[in-house]
């Protein structure tokens, strides 16, 4: 039961990350539509946030630095 609760928590986290990614992508598109000056700078910042969200939450990047005990 506890394991199932942990699984559900992780699945909900994944959904929240996806929502954040889609919102950021739509914001990118709207920046183009609104002809925001210095668009490239905003796009780079948003892309770096996107990449961090995927690497950290979906790819578990920080796993690389975890010890065996922390991993359990």
């Amino acid at each position, binding site marked *: 039961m506890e*394991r*199932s609760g*942990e*699984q559900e928590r*992780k*699945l909900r986290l*994944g*959904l929240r*990350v*996806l929502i954040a*990614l*889609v919102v950021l*992508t*739509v914001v*990118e*598109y709207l*920046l*183009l539509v609104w002809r925001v000056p210095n*668009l*490239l700078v905003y*796009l780079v910042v*948003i*892309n770096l946030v*996107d*990449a961090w969200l*995927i*690497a950290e*939450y*979906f*790819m578990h*990047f920080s*796993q*690389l630095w975890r010890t*065996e005990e922390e*991993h359990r």
Partner: protein
Amino acid sequence: MSTHSAARVHYDRLSLRRLGLWLFILSESFLFFAFLSSRYYVLGIYRPEHLNQALGLIITCILLLSSLTAYRAEVSVAHGDRERFLRNTLATIGLGLLFLVGVGIEWVEAFAYFPPQQRFGTVFFSLTGLHAFHVLSGLVLLVFVWLHGRRGRFSAAHYWAVEGSVKYWHFVDVAWVFIYPTLYLVSL
């Protein structure tokens, strides 16, 4: 070998595999970075008007959604939920195929407006072609994982093939996160 030693060996091996995969992903990132930088070197921030913006946005969202299903597949197998793992792996494969169909439609339009002989066409087809090849190879891995998953080859304790394939799939997503604005959004 004691149970503790066996667990230790398994963990060390898993850590090495993860490190190896991340190094591979890093080397792939350099390749994509070279292609992405060529866009700015060749074209600056010029962008033609004939790009299908709606299609670009839709296929980006499809690929992002496929990352969620891939993540759900990994979480499910890690908790021994085989049915959900298979369902989400299949959904990821379906969304990946849908993404490729979208790229195909975009290519048909692109051939008409900026063929590969033109400068933007060269950059467009190189970047999307390189990425589509990675999507295709990711799909092959996921089909392999799904087939083996159906035969019950993975468990909550041993699912490295799933984890590795899913990480690769997420990398393909990260690459597109940079390609999409580089081709579709950056402009004067």
